[in-house]
């Protein structure tokens, strides 16, 4: 099992590789893009500067450092969609950053995938979770376009993941295991993520009114209110790692572009700990997962931020 870690700067390469990361992914929005479209129309679905690699010079250095550690680096161009004008800039950027040594591009937009397949067929494409491969046929759809690696949506059960992976044996699948669980389906969500306080519409506090079913809506309101009581950046699927490997998942993806370095390191170490425990035939990985969760976040896990709620035990 590979561990795919977010990364934002060159100084994180050694720290994360030492912690156990096998691969890295990050985002960079060029100065040209920022000036022309602004960060509110980011090319990579992160709309705040701290989630971006700071400069082209830094991007080059990061790639060199990652390759020096024998790890690969993938660049995100995973906005949900682009304007027609933006495709010209995107293709230029993909070509340029490929020459920097980017090993693959993480993409969801069909128009960009089609253009890259046509104009830059040698460039590797990974399908972002925004590609919404919820079933066997949708994974086969993108595979037929030359996409060899895909990230599952966050909302599939282990059984469902296994079914899709078994039916698409030539695809390399990633699954999220830590940080950043969305209340909504990211690939279908049209909320903006550009508030300066980094609190998104899905996690902010609302006042609720029952418009229909005044009595029965109480439970619904209570359930929806729960999202504002948890920190979705404390999401976890550590105890599912063994089952994910059995299901055919080849890489464990950690969310967290723009997150603090220390948290990235702690989380990579935890994932690596469970992977190693399983690889050495050690028992007790679920107990270890619960212990690691408490160590990282200081509180027990709960079903809202559990990546595989079917495994959650109170």
């Amino acid at each position: 099992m590979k561990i795919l870690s977010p990364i934002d700067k060159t100084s994180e390469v050694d720290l994360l590789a030492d912690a156990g990361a096998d691969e890295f992914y990050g985002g960079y929005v060029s100065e040209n893009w920022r000036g022309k479209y602004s960060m509110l129309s980011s090319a990579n679905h992160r709309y705040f500067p701290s989630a971006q690699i700071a400069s082209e010079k830094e991007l080059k250095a990061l790639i060199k450092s990652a390759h020096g550690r024998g790890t690969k680096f993938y660049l995100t161009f995973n906005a949900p969609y682009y304007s027609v004008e933006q495709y010209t800039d995107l293709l230029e950027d993909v070509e340029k950053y490929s020459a920097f040594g980017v090993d693959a591009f993480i993409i969801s937009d069909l128009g960009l995938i089609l253009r890259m397949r046509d104009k830059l067929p040698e460039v590797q494409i990974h399908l972002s979770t925004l590609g919404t491969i919820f079933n066997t046929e949708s994974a086969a759809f993108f595979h037929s376009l030359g996409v060899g690696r895909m990230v599952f949506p966050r909302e599939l059960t282990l059984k469902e993941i296994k079914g899709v992976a078994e039916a698409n044996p030539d695809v390399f699948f990633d699954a999220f295991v830590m940080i950043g669980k969305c209340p909504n389906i990211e690939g279908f969500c049209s909320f903006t993520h550009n508030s300066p306080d980094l609190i998104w519409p899905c996690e902010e506090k609302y006042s609720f009114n029952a418009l229909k079913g005044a009595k029965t809506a109480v439970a619904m309101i209570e359930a929806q209110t729960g999202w504002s009581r948890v920190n979705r950046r404390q999401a976890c699927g550590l105890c599912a790692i063994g089952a994910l490997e059995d299901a055919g998942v080849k890489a464990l993806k950690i969310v967290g572009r723009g997150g603090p370095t220390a948290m990235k390191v702690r989380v990579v170490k935890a994932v690596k700990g469970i992977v190693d425990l399983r690889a050495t035939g050690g028992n007790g990985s679920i107990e270890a997962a619960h212990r690691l969760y408490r160590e990282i976040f200081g509180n027990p896990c709960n079903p809202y931020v559990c990546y595989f709620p079917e495994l959650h035990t109170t």
Partner: protein
Amino acid sequence: MPAMPPRGLKMPKVEKALYASALKQIKNTKGYTRVYFGAEFCQWRMPSPAAALRAYYISSGLGMKLTLLTPWLTDTGMKRAKAILGKLADAGAGDIEVVVNDFGMLTVLRMDFPMFTPVLGRLLVKQKRCPRVPGIMDRMPEPGREVYTHPGIEDPVTVSFLKRFGIRRVELDSPLQGIEVNLKPLGLKGSIYTPYVYVTTTRHCPSSFDGKSWQAFVGCKLKGCLKNVIELDNPAHEAGILMRGNTQFVENAVLPEGIAGMGIDRIVHMEELP
């Protein structure tokens, strides 16, 4: 007084469609020539094969065409969707449209059910519809704003590819920041939904949460979506969010001016939240 078209110039005809999530909603059909029936957002709200066929017969009996709505699908949901399509195909209902919100379903239609006409659904049209968008529009240069005002389905490369699957129609919303689109040069037609604008959807359906787990992951029996609608208010938003089942909407009854000129020839009217 609205401007009249020059004498002899034919006004473009806009079809009116009625959105029905359940059979009992196929009523008061005067003025409508088409019924949208099914579920866009939840595979557990798809009709049974028998109910889908019944919807076909009812709408045909009323002289209306049928558009079947399908949601995003897991493998389990795909089996259920195929059963519905199989029932309609066996009954010879080859004149229906099927709205797809899942690329897997698009391939299934082309391979197994080529008699049906696929339509690109709202979940596969990625335009931002967040109620915060109007508040950020003036913070972007024009090329950035265009990303928010255009629905993201005007790329000739994408459209050409989707046409190989039979797509000739796309389903659009009228978001709070407005919509600008010109489908005509692309050889597409558009439908625009009113008044409920899709915003987001989840599998963590609060109507299916029993305090410990979400039944929407395994097969929802609570069906709270049929009983409850809630409003989520936040002062940072231009409009309140309306939530039914697993899906959130904003209400916007304002349609863009000159929709026929945009290539939109159908209005899909929702009498209640989907």
